[in-house]
């Protein structure tokens, strides 16, 4: 971090955006690799439009653990933006 609180605030905003963009990207990579042919464009759109870092983290953990796509899709449907 820098000696300026203002600049640190901008850097933190950038960090949050970077985490959000990377979260969406890795979740897409994960579900497309794990559930080939099952993930619809609507699901990908839902991932790309999600603004909550907490929710994306949760979706990622669920997708990693899910044995079948329905487990992941059910959580997605229950989430606030579904």
């Amino acid at each position, binding site marked *: 971090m820098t000696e300026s609180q203002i600049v640190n605030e901008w850097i933190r905003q*950038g960090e949050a*955006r*970077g985490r959000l963009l990377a979260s969406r990207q890795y979740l897409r990579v994960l579900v497309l690799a794990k559930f080939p042919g099952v993930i619809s464009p609507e699901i990908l759109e839902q991932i790309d439009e999600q603004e909550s870092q907490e929710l994306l983290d949760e979706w990622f953990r669920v997708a990693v653990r899910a044995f079948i796509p329905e487990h992941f899709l059910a959580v997605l449907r229950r989430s606030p933006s579904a």
Partner: protein
Amino acid sequence: MGVYDQAARFAAREDREAVLRCLLAGKGVALAFRDWLDTRSFPLPGGPDRTADLVAALDDPAAADKPWLLVLEFQARVDPDKLDVTLEEVAILRSRVRHGEDRKGKYKVLAGLVYLQGRCPEEVLDMTLPDGSGTRYAPLVWNVAADDAGRTLEAVARGEFSWGMLFWVVLMEGGGEDAVISRWEEVVTAMVSDRRMRSNLAGIALVFADLVGRVPAWKRGLEGWEMTESQVVNEWMSQGEARGRLEQARKSLLVVLGKQFPGTVPAEIGRLINEQESLELLDDWLRAALDADTFEQFLAVLRR
């Protein structure tokens, strides 16, 4: 380089006339800016990576064959060794840089110290004998805090000072007063038509306000101002974005490895991942972790 130096360099580059006018005020000479000099090829005091904040080549209209170099240094805090260091810089530039078609002409070299807060504690380094022989070093000095913010704004509004003075107003006397900030907004709106440059002015104003403890007043005053078009603000946000992406890439990979190969990921691999600075490599490793049937298969990719 600190963020205040970065902000000052940016402001000086965007409107060099503003800084030149302040440094040369009352000196009885009108040196004209020609170009910025790349100082990376001249080792300066402080190590091989040390460069002067900015070096400008200036022309003297009264003596076209005798150009000047101006070493610009921005001081966010008082440095008691500044005169010594800049004297070295001046000497190095004098002895190593040449001008003219035959590259044999030596520049006259000046230093210009811009104090972003406080005052230059010692403006002259006098090492002369009683008869005047010896060395006397007297850089140009602009103590920004000694200027009056309100008068400067009116001079910009009348077109007597160039628009770039607006970068520095926050640092001047009275620069934290609500009336000055309101007037600053009016003058910026009237004199600067480019939206991106207005964003830059607002961004730099906030950074300088931070330096001199005027953030609350300027944040209040600049409420509603768009900063996202500012190159200087976006540069800092991009630094943060890159760091955020890297953190998330490491975290995602560790989550995948922990699930795919529970209990088999050694601490040293965790460390290796957490120390990896290449986003591209982390992306490859994540894909490899998803493709691998065994931890050994993943390790084989890691070793490559």
